């Protein structure tokens, strides 16, 4: 029975890996025409204007990274804080409430986050800064809500596993819970924290709905976090309706290739970060 199960798992893993490889190959194949074009360098510029035959996508690459980076900073601060409170608190009620809240956040679809933000957060921020309704900051804040569960669950996992293994021992050595957390747990979970952050980055880079609905999608290169910008994912969604043979449509494949490559590189980095043996 175990043998059949493990063979079944192996087959499913091979099929999944094959499918991922196929996606990568197809995107690359569809891009390959662009690499032989003289106009390839026109894709690596900052101006997108179909009317003027300009197809630069670097603004959108920058848009993707800046929104994800800001979301990551906010998300990390909140995730780490929530997980620290869950670990350090003696109140089982607070622990229960926070854990369930994080789990519930993971189940909320991204479109609900975006839609709610449109009616609650956008009017709130426009009250303080009238020129920044749909902007980088709005999209980043809402995107951080999306990635908090991703990071929190990984952080909680490592904190709990270290706690299970070493907490009793440390308690017996009269080390307080706080000392155990700050001097042992954090020091020995840097690897897993980094993996959580990188995984959340891939999630943030790949999100379409929140960025499409909240970042404003302007074509100009942003000069502040209160400006509107467009990400690679929302650019794909917005120019999808162009004619199949047009350069604008072909740019979609380059956007997809850049996105896939960025995520691939991040996943490789996650895999390369090796776990350490625990020591005080």
């Amino acid at each position: 029975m175990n043998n059949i199960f493990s063979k079944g798992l192996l087959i499913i893993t091979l099929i999944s890996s094959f499918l991922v490889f196929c996606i990568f190959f197809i995107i690359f194949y569809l891009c390959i025409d662009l690499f032989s074009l003289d106009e390839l360098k026109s894709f690596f510029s900052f101006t997108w204007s179909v009317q003027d035959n300009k197809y630069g996508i670097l603004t959108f690459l920058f848009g993707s990274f800046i929104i994800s980076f800001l979301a990551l900073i906010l998300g990390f601060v909140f995730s780490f804080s929530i997980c620290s409170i869950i670990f350090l608190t003696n109140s089982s009620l607070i622990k229960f409430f926070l854990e369930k809240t994080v789990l519930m956040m993971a189940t909320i679809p991204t479109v609900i986050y975006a839609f709610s933000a449109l009616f609650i957060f956008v009017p709130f921020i426009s009250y303080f800064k009238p020129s920044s309704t749909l902007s980088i900051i709005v999209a980043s804040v809402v995107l951080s809500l999306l990635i908090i569960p991703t990071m929190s669950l990984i952080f909680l996992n490592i904190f709990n596993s270290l706690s299970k293994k070493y907490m009793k021992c440390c308690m017996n050595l009269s080390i307080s819970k706080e000392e155990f957390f700050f001097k042992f747990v954090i020091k020995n979970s840097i690897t897993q924290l980094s993996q959580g952050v990188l995984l959340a980055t891939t999630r943030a880079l790949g999100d379409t709905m929140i960025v499409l609905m909240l970042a404003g999608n302007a074509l100009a290169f942003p000069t502040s976090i209160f400006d509107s910008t467009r990400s690679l994912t929302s650019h794909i969604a917005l120019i999808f309706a162009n004619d199949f043979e047009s350069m604008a449509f072909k740019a979609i494949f380059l956007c997809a290739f850049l996105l896939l490559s960025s995520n691939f590189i991040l996943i490789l980095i996650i895999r390369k970060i090796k776990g350490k043996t625990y020591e005080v």
Partner: protein
Amino acid sequence: MKKLLLTLITLSLTFLNASDLKVFENLKGTLNIAGGTAHIKCEKEAIKNIMRKYPDITISIAGGGSGIGIKQVSSKIIDLANSGRKPTQKEIENGDLKLFRFAIDGIGVIVNPKLNIDSLTTKQLQDIFSGKITNFKELGLSNAPINLYTRDESSATRKVFWKRALKKSPISNKARVVSSNAAMKTAISKDENAIGIISLGVANDSVKLLNINGVKPTVENINNDSYNVARGLYLLSSGEPSKLASAYISYLRSNEGAKIVSKYGFIPINE
């Protein structure tokens, strides 16, 4: 006597109830429609009437914009496309498109209802949308930045507005882009300093329509050509439409269909 009376009443009711929906008699199946977002509200009511009377018929409608609709119908992913512009000759040839116009729709400039402005000239519109005017104080209002909203490039609403109202003047690349008429309405209604464009059939009290050169964007002014920022609403099929699609087109162009179209602020036509 009672039976005769009942028969007479039933017959008279049937006669009185003879409706334009009878084109769907003996038809069944699925009809998939997608494309322009201006069409959605009025077509949804028509679809509800059809599906209520004929449960064997299923009609689905989706947005995405006129560009998406044209593309999908040309690839035969959907049966009918909604388009807010006449397809180009190239698009017609590529998709073997057949055009069926059923309404005329105006395109208006909208602002938040709290803004104290009622009219803009063509020159002011060109300057605002090109990014030359960036603050409401340049229009004689209080000091506040103008938050410009426009539609994506494949939108017929944007194309027609750019051609007819802006006279092909450029649109600033700092303008925020939204992907449907409904999204435009939401964005403008939530932003006190916003200015955008919308199909007149979709506009409601949550936004304020501006006059262009003193002309109010109304059905009467579109009909008498004094307000010329208007476009046809089309249904497109790739090749000859199926029986169900033909029935749907006929229904929208019928008297009942015209009443629904008028109800949503469009001008019904039948050609």
